[in-house]
């Protein structure tokens, strides 16, 4: 049978964000995968070079909606290290709490998406329902559900009141019970086992060779976890374990993520109960000294690396964001070879792709060299003119 190219995306129900796969298939089997990410490049890295440290953090948060705290913490952590600031422990703990709550809501979201991809919509509804509880907790602490805005260079912006701590602690037992149920479901629910087991298998050697990060790597038995390798925030003080699995397939990745939900819950509880007293920020100088730093952070999807170069001013000279999804794409192309076409959405979803991170992005007006919003009329006008262009021969 001849090879056929199936073009999936940029608009496809399995993809939550635009990406294009040119899948070369031979019958039902996948032979090769070509990838095009260029659908929403926003030029965040260029825009970050033109903003001072105060104004760049909201921009960093908006690199991605789900891991907004990851990006801003990675950036703030790097700048603080360059400025040689000592961050008060209370600020570190608050950052850790938000980070782990973010990981929980991201993993619950992933579990729902994975269930939706195999058509198991019930689990999708249930996990997203439980995710609401996590987001409500974050909203009570930071005032927002997604872009928390908790970080600033030198500490955190908002303190946790005792009432907030108690409210958050009260929510945890309920979540704990739900996570126990999911652990049970994943190991016993036949429809999930039948679709996840043995799909997208990646051995330990392959996982290392193709540079996978995060739960994808840990499912193959690679115990790289930045929180342990290079402890930042409060992770050195908190007792927790790196979750690994030996299956290496989508089932293993599910188990790792659910295990991490459990660990995150433990970390959040520990941090809330042992929140140190003290100030929540130190005053940061306006300028950072010349230097370079590779700031690594374990985002929910894997290791996030911000390479920051400063030049003595209040702006960065270069910030290079390596997102976990970009690191995992190479392994996806390998996983997919010789798999069924029907398994493509599952395998792609298993790395939890976050494309808005990967093609980093802001509305950059090339002519006015300014960022801004676009009016609805203009969008309609543009679309209309584009349609007319296409109609014209």
């Amino acid at each position: 049978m001849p090879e056929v190219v199936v073009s999936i995306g940029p608009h496809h129900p399995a993809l939550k964000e635009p990406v294009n796969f040119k899948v070369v298939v031979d019958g039902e089997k996948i032979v090769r995968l070509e990838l095009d990410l260029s659908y929403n490049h926003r030029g965040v890295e260029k825009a970050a070079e033109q903003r001072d440290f105060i104004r760049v953090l909201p921009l960093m948060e908006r690199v991605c909606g789900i891991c907004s705290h990851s990006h801003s913490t990675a950036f703030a952590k790097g700048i603080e290290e360059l400025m040689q600031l000592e961050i008060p422990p209370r600020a570190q703990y608050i950052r850790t709490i938000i980070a782990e709550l973010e990981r929980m809501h991201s993993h619950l979201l992933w579990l729902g998406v994975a269930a939706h991809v195999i058509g198991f919509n019930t689990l999708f509804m249930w996990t997203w329902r439980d995710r609401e509880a996590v987001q409500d907790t974050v909203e009570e602490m930071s005032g927002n559900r997604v872009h928390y805005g908790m970080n600033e260079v030198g500490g955190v912006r908002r303190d946790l009141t005792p009432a907030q701590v108690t409210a958050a602690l009260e929510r945890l037992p309920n979540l704990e019970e739900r996570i126990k149920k999911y652990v049970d479901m994943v190991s016993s629910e036949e429809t999930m086992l039948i679709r996840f087991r043995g799909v997208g298998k990646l051995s330990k050697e392959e996982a290392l060779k193709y540079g996978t990060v995060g739960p994808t790597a840990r499912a193959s038995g690679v115990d790289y976890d930045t929180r342990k390798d290079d402890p930042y925030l409060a992770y050195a003080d908190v007792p927790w374990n790196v979750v690994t699995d030996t299956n290496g397939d989508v089932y293993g990745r599910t188990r790792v993520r659910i295990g991490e939900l459990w660990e995150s819950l433990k970390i959040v509880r520990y941090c809330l109960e042992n929140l140190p007293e003290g100030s929540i920020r130190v005053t940061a100088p306006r300028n950072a000294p010349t230097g370079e730093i590779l700031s690594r952070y374990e985002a929910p999807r894997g290791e996030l690396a911000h390479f920051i170069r400063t030049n003595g001013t209040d702006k960065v000279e270069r910030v290079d964001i390596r997102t976990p999804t970009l690191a995992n794409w190479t392994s996806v192309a390998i996983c997919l070879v010789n798999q069924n076409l029907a398994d493509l959405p599952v395998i792609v979803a298993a790395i939890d792709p976050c494309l808005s991170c990967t093609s980093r992005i802001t509305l950059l007006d090339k002519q006015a060299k300014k960022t801004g919003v676009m009016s609805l009329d203009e969008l309609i006008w543009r679309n209309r003119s584009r349609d007319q262009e296409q109609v014209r021969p």
Partner: protein
Amino acid sequence: MSVLREMFENLLSRPITILYPKEKVPIPGAFRGRVAITDEKCIGCSKCSLVCPARAITMIDGPREVEFNGKTLNRKKRPQVKLYKCIRCGLCERHCPTGAIFLKNELSSSGTDGEIVVM
């Protein structure tokens, strides 16, 4: 089996959805909502317009006298926020020396009209 049990438990219990316009969603105390400016407190220092990442705040002419630290200052400028450009990051609130600009604890609408302003 745990799925089956939970399914039938759910069938007999109430749905979790909040029917929004009928039921009100509780707004937490720390909520970051619509931006507001107290004109009497503002000393016109322009800090908010400098830190605003969305460049939603511009300083416009507004000559007036304000009390600050026991002194009466003669100020020429005051901030004006383009409401639908505001991303509600709260940086203006954080950097305001007098607490004149702040995010209220109420929902902010969203829209496309760039000309709607809060003063």
